[in-house]
């Protein structure tokens, strides 16, 4: 039942600032991945990342909040402002307890935390600022958005790495079905500091290539891991009733699952999770027009995803794409950005291609859109996301009525 819709998109991503700038870059296959500039990464195995180009917090965030919050929160505050403006909703006209905030976060405020830790070690405890108590914390972004916009309804944060970005949209739908009328959701992440990078590298899944065009090529025979990135998207979710003519798309179905330890011998839950999301949406597999893949970028994880998609939709049964090759994986911000991209694809009837990937690895029975965007009428999209350690989520979206 399409009772909830996304009415506003606020994008701050390596592919650009603003949903339309991002969308143009995606269709042009213009990558935001390059050598890390935020700090000297030349001594680390991972040297590439997707950084948000030209982001200056002073242009987008109230001056008071800049020293109190981390870059990841700056990006989200800026994106929330843009998403609210885009939504056409008027928060001032809504009761404060009927507006909620639920964002995803994976890294927290690592750069802020690193700065304070350096002061602790180099100068002593009295040099650690009071804002360290809140700036690093995963819920900081949700809290600051809530305070900034006077939204006092149910607030929360979901930390499920990349999968959390879909789970928050489902939580937004849950809240809209009960006491809330508007939910600020989606998320961002930014861990562009040595501490942040090293913490990510521990998963052993990152690309050590220094070629921005070929470092992150999911499903390719040369897949060698993923490139990290920063930014994401903040989304405004509202009840369909009252949002006529403003919806980018409807939230049709969701499911999440969690992989068991490999030692149990149980198969990955991805295919079952997709099927449950389709059930929730009331759709058969044939009712899905396009899949935005998780696209982990390692041979093993790519194989698991391709097998799950082939199992649910049949071999090459549905067009699949992964525009995230242009941004890198954005953790808490990744899936919300995929949701934004999917909604723009539904709006315009065009499937963006997976830039970078050239030759599918053996056994990948998927119809991956390569080379250039594919024009075709679209009514529904499935977004898939997995997070390190077993987090799995799937979200089904339907085309909106936005004028």
């Amino acid at each position: 039942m399409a009772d909830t819709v996304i009415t506003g998109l606020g994008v701050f991503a390596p592919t650009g600032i603003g949903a339309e700038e991002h969308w143009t870059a995606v269709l042009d296959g213009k990558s935001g991945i390059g050598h890390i500039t935020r700090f000297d990464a030349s001594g680390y195995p991972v040297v590439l990342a997707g950084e948000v180009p030209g982001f200056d917090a002073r242009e987008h965030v109230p001056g008071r909040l800049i020293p109190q919050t981390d870059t990841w929160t700056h990006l989200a505050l800026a994106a929330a402002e843009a998403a609210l403006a885009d939504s056409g909703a008027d928060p001032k006209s809504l009761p404060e307890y009927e507006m909620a905030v639920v964002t995803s976060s994976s890294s927290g405020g690592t750069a802020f935390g690193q700065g304070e830790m350096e002061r602790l070690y180099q100068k002593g405890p009295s040099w650690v600022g009071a804002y360290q108590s809140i700036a690093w914390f995963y819920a900081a972004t949700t809290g600051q958005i809530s305070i900034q916009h006077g939204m006092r309804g149910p607030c929360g944060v979901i930390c499920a790495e990349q999968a959390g970005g879909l789970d928050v949209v489902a939580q937004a739908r849950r809240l809209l079905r009960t006491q809330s009328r508007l939910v600020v959701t989606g998320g961002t992440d930014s861990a562009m500091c040595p501490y942040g990078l090293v913490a990510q590298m521990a998963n052993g899944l990152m690309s050590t290539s220094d070629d921005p065009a070929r470092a992150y090529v999911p499903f390719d025979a040369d897949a060698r891991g993923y490139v990290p990135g920063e930014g994401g998207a903040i989304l405004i979710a509202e009840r369909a009733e009252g949002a006529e003519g403003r919806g980018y798309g409807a939230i049709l179905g969701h499911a999440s699952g969690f992989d068991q330890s490999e030692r149990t011998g149980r198969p990955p839950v991805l295919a079952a999770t997709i099927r449950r999301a389709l059930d929730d949406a009331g759709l058969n597999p044939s009712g899905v027009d396009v899949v935005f893949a998780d696209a982990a970028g390692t041979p093993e994880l790519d194989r698991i995803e391709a097998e799950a998609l082939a199992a649910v939709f049949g071999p090459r049964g549905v067009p699949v794409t992964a525009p995230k090759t242009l941004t890198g994986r954005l953790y808490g911000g990744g899936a919300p950005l995929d949701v934004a991209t999917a909604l723009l694809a539904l709006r315009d009837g065009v499937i963006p291609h997976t830039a970078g990937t050239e030759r599918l690895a053996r056994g990948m029975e998927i119809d991956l859109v390569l080379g250039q965007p594919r024009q075709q009428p679209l009514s529904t999209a499935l977004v898939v996301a997995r997070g390190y350690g077993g987090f799995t989520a799937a979200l089904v979206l339907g085309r909106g009525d936005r004028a």
Partner: protein
Amino acid sequence: MSTFSLDDLREIMRQSAGVEAGVDLDADITDIEFIELGYDSLALLELAIQVKRKYGVSIPDDDVVDMTTPRIAVEYINRQLVGAEV
């Protein structure tokens, strides 16, 4: 004898938590509550940290809570500075 003036406090306020839009710290803020000036309890803890760093005056958390206006803060910090020299 060292003393701590309202201007010293203003400087620390600016450095510690910044100034909220619409607030003029240069106006007569002596008896305006910190909360009205946009400084919440966390901003005051940050202020206390900077006072300790710059003037060597430790302000226990419980005393920070009681510091509701710039006048009370300036008087408190001066008492500590004087006490430290006796």
